């Protein structure tokens, strides 16, 4: 399996692990996603002050919205966009793994997974990051 956006997240090594996001941490303590080297949005530091930080794709739901009308032809509505506050700090926006019409309660525990979105020329599966509610144990 190959990541559609390898700059942004890892492909988990086994079924029991969750994907990790390629974030960054500034020496001022600010944690951000995705990693960038232009400079810290909080304090302006750059260079060695900014270090890569692996962030677990796990957090709580801030909000969700089901998109019913979408102009871009490469993505078919309906789909659900989610805003998630990662346990490591940053808020990310992604898609829900499965479309659903009912409203997800804010605060729902969410985690990332890789969903197949196509195949590469060599036949390898290409997967993109999605989020889904954590199933009760």
């Amino acid at each position, binding site marked *: 399996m190959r990541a559609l*956006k390898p*700059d*942004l*997240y890892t492909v988990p090594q086994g079924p029991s692990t969750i994907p990790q996001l390629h974030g960054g941490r500034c020496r001022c303590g*600010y944690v951000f996603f*995705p990693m*960038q080297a*232009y400079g810290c*949005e*909080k304090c302006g530091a750059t260079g060695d002050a900014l270090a890569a930080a692996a962030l677990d794709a796990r957090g709580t739901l*801030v*909000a*969700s*919205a*089901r*998109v*019913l*009308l*979408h*102009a*871009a032809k*490469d*993505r078919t509505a309906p*789909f659900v*966009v989610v*805003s998630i*506050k990662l346990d490591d700090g940053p*808020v*990310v*926006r*992604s*898609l829900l793994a499965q479309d659903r019409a009912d*409203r997800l*309660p*804010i605060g729902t525990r969410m985690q990332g997974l890789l969903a197949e979105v196509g195949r590469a020329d060599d036949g390898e599966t290409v997967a993109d*990051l999605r989020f889904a509610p954590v199933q009760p144990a």
Partner: protein
Amino acid sequence: MPKTLKDLRPVYVVGAGYHRYQPLSETTFVTLGLAAVRGALADAGIEFPAVESAFVATALLPMAPGRPILRHLGASGIELIHIENASASSSAAFRKACIEVASGLVDVALVLGVDKPPTSGPRGRAEAKTGIGNLADDAIVPFTHFALLADQYTQRWGVDPNDVARVAVKNHANGAKNPNAHRQQVRTLEEILGGRPVAGNFTTLQCTPVGEGAAAVVVASEDAIRRLNISGDKPVRVTGSASRSQRVYDDNTTFDANLTSETTEICLREAGLRPDQLDIVELHDAFTVEEVQYVEAMGLCAPGRAVPMLKEGAWDVGGRCAVNPSGGLIAMGHPIGPTGVGQIGEIALQLRGAAGARQHKGAKTGLAHMVGVGAVCYVHTLQRD
């Protein structure tokens, strides 16, 4: 100690003009712009040679549309500057024109906002070209962003999302009385909710129509008002001007409201006003939920109270504070470049008692608010004795 606008010499809006906001048409940007400028000059009762500097705001037209418009008023050779600041382009132009007149550098400045959406697809945003990736960039457009905020807000406060749609009912009713509005039709809640679903609880009638149009105001000093014999019923004083851009907030998910809150606070402090003294508020309601969040962020009511007060009619023309009497972005429309200065013109008309069927009686104090992607925020207060 830095000065505020109020520490400089007084500055006034003395005339306002429009070309109706409308769907994209064959009308040239020149025709749009000239209609607004000639309207503003006629309203002020002055001729173009009296204008000493011109600020032209646009976000969607190709570069430098100002001279192709203004030369048809008699090319007088005055300073001409273009300002692009997303949705807040002409709010920024208005602020800079006020500062220039207040500083004493010029006595009369023209602010024109004019735009036509490109036919060859959106011009796009620089944010998409930073080289920094995004998990779902192709899936999140402005209405998705605000649908997420609507879900967050309504769940936080236990508000029925269908009640948020009442903002659109109110603003369509106001727009129906505004000859310059893009949408001029009264809509029932059933019609608003029964429209084409877009995202979350939003239907198309809860979202702004982006079309074409133009708006202009003339800004003048007291010297100019005397020298040009501008009628005493026209000048409306600009008593506060503030602008901020987005910081890193503790809760970045509500950055639009945070930015609105801090910019409004600065402007009101500068003007020496409290939120409860505002008779008119024109704010950036590109989506219904924005009006609800911003009236709270401005301090017009306590957090979570905007929708109950909306249902009680507090934000109606004739209510406690008329919010978006022009119809707002939802009904008056949002041609981008003109929108911010169009709000200033509406407030000037309201404070002069010249707003016709949508007049909020006895209006003395108004506030204009715009946000633009980036994000930036502009707030101005206008007052009349």
